[in-house]
């Protein structure tokens, strides 16, 4: 039958056709464009407008960057080289790069010290950020603050050494007494640490060599992006423990403690950081014992730490509130006292929930460190607005400098927020 058919009807095909590609409008780039860019008339208009904007920006910015001049000594020279053509004078960056990073009074021969401290920061932060790394690395994290202090400020090594010793002594005392009562261990530890620091101060005075291995650098010589990094890292790390205490205090059922914490948190959160910096700059000195004078940088660290502690406390309070009540009840029913319950059950979970929020606060705080330029500290923005733009050579270079500043901040902040998102995804797994 089929044979017959094949012979009888010549128009019947005997072989199967090869597969045709799908219609051009339903495949590949065209389909993707039709679905994603031109699915409807308003969508198409939006696409065209966006492409036009991108085109404008790129044709404006690209030649400017590509024509950039990197090796002249002044703006006037750079303009001569450009000779009217569009182009950036990036030579201000190559000329003043070290000043942008370290400020203008950090001794140039010691630039490697903050540089090394910066690199070690990653090593120290790694075990905190990535849980898979061996826990032994945390020892380095513990040593890092003292090492970094010594590297950046220099001077005798005994000061940070005794600070570290005091901490260790405090911890040993704490570990010894905590079995009896948390309060006893805690206060005993604090007292022991204070005594060690006190004695250490005298010993340091006595044995400090006149010519320390690392030359001491004054706080007011700190500047540039380094100052932003110092303020950001120090204030965030200091404000974490304070924030936890404040959050616990606010959740506490002891009314006086609760109200102290509430008033503090709401007060700090209610005023702009800049007024707190004014306090650091012009008012705080009146509240210190007559005759003592703190460095401006130290006063600023105190105020920024208070500021971020209040915000972190609110984030952690959110984490505490998000924990099911059963967790608190379970801890109680195990017979744990308040300190144990918090330390072993509540805080580990609450902190884990709060990590993304804490990272957000940290990023915001790091950005806010630029405000110190308003009180005449030469951080990155202060360097640009002050010494560099007022110098005869570079008077009038705005875009290159601010672009560089934006890029530096963007890299750091974007990096941290990407990390936070990664962490969020990772921590989210065990909730499902």
């Amino acid at each position, binding site marked *: 039958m089929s044979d017959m058919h094949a012979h009888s009807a010549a128009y019947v095909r005997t072989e199967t056709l090869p597969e045709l590609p799908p219609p051009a409008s339903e495949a590949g780039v065209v389909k993707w464009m039709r679905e994603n860019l031109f699915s409807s008339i308003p969508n198409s208009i939006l696409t065209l407008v966006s492409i036009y904007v991108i085109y404008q920006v790129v044709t404006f910015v690209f030649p400017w960057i590509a024509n950039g001049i990197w090796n002249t000594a002044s703006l*006037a020279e750079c303009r001569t080289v450009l000779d009217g053509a569009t182009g950036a004078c990036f030579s201000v960056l190559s000329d003043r790069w070290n*000043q942008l990073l370290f400020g*203008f*009074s950090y001794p*140039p021969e010691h630039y490697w010290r903050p540089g090394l401290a910066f690199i070690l920061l990653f090593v120290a932060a790694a075990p905190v950020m990535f849980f898979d790394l061996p826990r032994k690395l945390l020892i380095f994290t*513990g040593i890092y*603050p*003292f090492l970094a*202090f010594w590297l950046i*400020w220099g*001077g005798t090594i005994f*000061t*940070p050494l*005794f*600070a*570290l010793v*005091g*901490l260790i002594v405090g911890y040993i005392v704490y570990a010894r007494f905590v079995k009896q009562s948390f309060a006893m261990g805690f206060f005993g530890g604090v007292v022991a640490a204070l005594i060690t*620091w006190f004695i*250490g*101060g005298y010993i*340091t*005075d006595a044995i400090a060599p006149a010519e320390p291995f690392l030359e001491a650098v*004054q706080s*007011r010589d700190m500047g540039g992006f380094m100052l932003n990094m110092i303020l950001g890292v*120090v204030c965030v*790390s*200091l404000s974490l*423990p304070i924030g936890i205490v404040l959050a616990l205090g606010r959740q506490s059922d002891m009314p006086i403690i609760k109200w102290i914490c509430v008033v503090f948190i709401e007060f700090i959160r209610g005023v702009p950081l800049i007024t707190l910096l004014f306090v650091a*700059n*012009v008012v705080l*000195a*009146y509240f210190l014992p007559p*005759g*003592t*004078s*703190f*460095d*401006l940088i*130290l006063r600023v*660290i*105190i105020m920024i*730490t208070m500021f971020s502690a209040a915000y972190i406390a609110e984030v952690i309070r959110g984490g505490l509130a998000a924990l099911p009540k059963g967790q608190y009840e379970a801890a109680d029913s195990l017979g744990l006292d308040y300190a144990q319950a918090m330390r072993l059950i509540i805080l580990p979970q609450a902190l884990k929930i709060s990590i993304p929020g804490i990272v957000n606060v940290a990023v915001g705080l790091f950005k806010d460190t630029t405000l110190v330029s*308003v*009180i*005449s500290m*030469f951080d990155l923005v202060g360097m640009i*607005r*002050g*010494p560099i*733009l*007022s*110098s*005869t*050579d570079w*008077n*009038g270079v705005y875009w290159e400098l601010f672009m560089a500043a934006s890029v530096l901040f963007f890299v750091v902040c974007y990096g941290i927020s990407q990390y936070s998102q990664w962490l969020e995804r990772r921590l989210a797994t065990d909730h499902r």
Partner: protein
Amino acid sequence: MKKTVLFGALTVAGLAAGMASAATLDDVKARGSLNCGVTTGLVGFASPDANGVWDGFDVGVCRAVAAAIFGDPTAVEFVPTTGKTRFTALASGEIDMLARNTTWTFSRDVDLKFEFTGVNYYDGQGFLVPKDLGVSSAKDLDGATVCIQTGTTTELNLADFFRSNNISYDPVPIETNAEGQQQYLAGACDVYTTDASGLASTRAAFENPGDHVLLPEIISKEPLGPLVRHGDNDWGDVVRWTLNALITAEELGVTSANVSDLSAAPTDNPEVNRLLGTEGELGAMLGLEADWAKNAIAAGGNYGELFEKNIGENTPIGLARGLNAQWTEGGLIYSPPFR
């Protein structure tokens, strides 16, 4: 756990600052360096060069005081201050003296509790305008936009001047000289006003200084001088007489070039001898070495040398001595005698 950074820093600060006593001179000697407040950058008066070394007329005064105390003009920590922060920095003890073209006024002296130790520059508030604006007098500035630094006497003078001449203006407040320069050059304001010396210094930093003119009106008296905290008279004396030593040195012809010869042995002029410590005990009365004035003069030269080197007619700033000439030459610069 990182709390100790703070404590470490506190220890350092505590050890370095110590319990300061009422005597600033003792504190400075114990510290080994002088903390001197200067501007954040005004070419000729105080500005850091590309290496961060401070230089200028006000800086010269700081260095002279440091040299008088330590014999070392580099034993100074320069603390940049803005119009806003300068008085608090001084009042709180962050700086020992302020040499930042600060005008001596009644209320600063009496109400803010500071002690002006003399005048190192007699100034007055002027106006800088672009030549092509076609303005020849400040009274023609009705309706103009004026750039002005906040926190200075200049904004009060400006308000008074326009008010008394019954003309209007539009103030644009700015924080630092650098921003004023930026605004003025971009044409965001028609006029830039501050002390005439500051204007000359600012104009010197322009690409085409010739396109800008200073108007003839000087609308205020601005005696600029170093100041210290009220109540520590010994320290005030050190700063006051160091400045006077520089002035007297010019009057007596003692320069940085011949000061070491003149101080090697007593000369014929008894006042030079008293000044340079080869006769009498003036240094000991101040609590300093006998050769304090010699060191101060050797640091950057006498008053006239400092002036010529930093802001004089041969510098880009190009200020004439004018009121700031010695009294013997018709100016106001006059030091009480060293006796």
